[in-house]
């Protein structure tokens, strides 16, 4: 259980889960909109379902997927920066070793 909480507390995982849930919520809204529209033959009564279900659902889905894409790109960029930082540290270690060697000779 502690292991699950530890994984969930990771901002990368929790943000992905929240955004994925929002995306699923958008799909559910579209399904609800379809249900409401299909339940009546009067266009005037169908339109509110169209706006509150389909439009809001598509907006929520687009919002969640857009932010999810941004979040995943940022996670990748952070990993890339960490690798670059490691390279930088290696270069500084090499520089320090070369300086010490030069000072000794």
């Amino acid at each position, binding site marked *: 259980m502690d292991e699950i909480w530890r994984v969930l507390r990771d901002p990368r995982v929790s943000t992905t889960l929240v955004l994925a849930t929002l995306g699923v919520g958008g799909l559910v809204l579209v399904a609800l909109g379809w249900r409401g529209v299909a339940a009546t033959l009067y*266009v*005037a*009564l169908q*339109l*509110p379902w*169209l*706006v*509150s279900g389909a*439009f*809001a659902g*598509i*907006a*929520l889905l*687009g*919002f969640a997927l*857009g*932010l999810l*894409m*941004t979040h995943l*790109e*940022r996670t990748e*960029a952070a990993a*890339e*920066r960490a690798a*670059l*930082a490691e*390279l*930088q540290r290696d*270069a*500084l270690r*090499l*520089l320090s070793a*070369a*300086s010490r*060697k*030069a000072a000794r*000779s």
Partner: protein
Amino acid sequence: MSASLSDPVEIRPADDPYAAPYDEVQGLEAPRRRGPTLPALSPIPTYAGIAIAAAGFVLIAYAWSKVAGIADNVALQLPYLVSGGLTGLGLVMVGVTVVNVAAKRRDGLLRQQQTELLADALHELRSAMDREPQ
């Protein structure tokens, strides 16, 4: 042509990292000086994007309340559908794009800074190895 350890090494001056000879390398151009822009690390565009997307959702909710309030006339409902629903949808997309662009600018700047630091460290290393007696 390949570089060797005996090649002369020049460290970029701190006040102008794009000074010669780096701006003379083919294919590499110094960034153009533009007018004042929002700093890439500023959180303002991200908040603005979220606010624009939230305004889009509010507009969709407003359109829904108006459309649901007119239960007998489609001709009166359609203008709210278009001006509220579609505009709200558009605002949400614009907001998400603003957040995405802000994140890309921020990551790009951080990556550029880090790459420059790494390049400087490697140049220093090359200079130190050149100074070392053979």
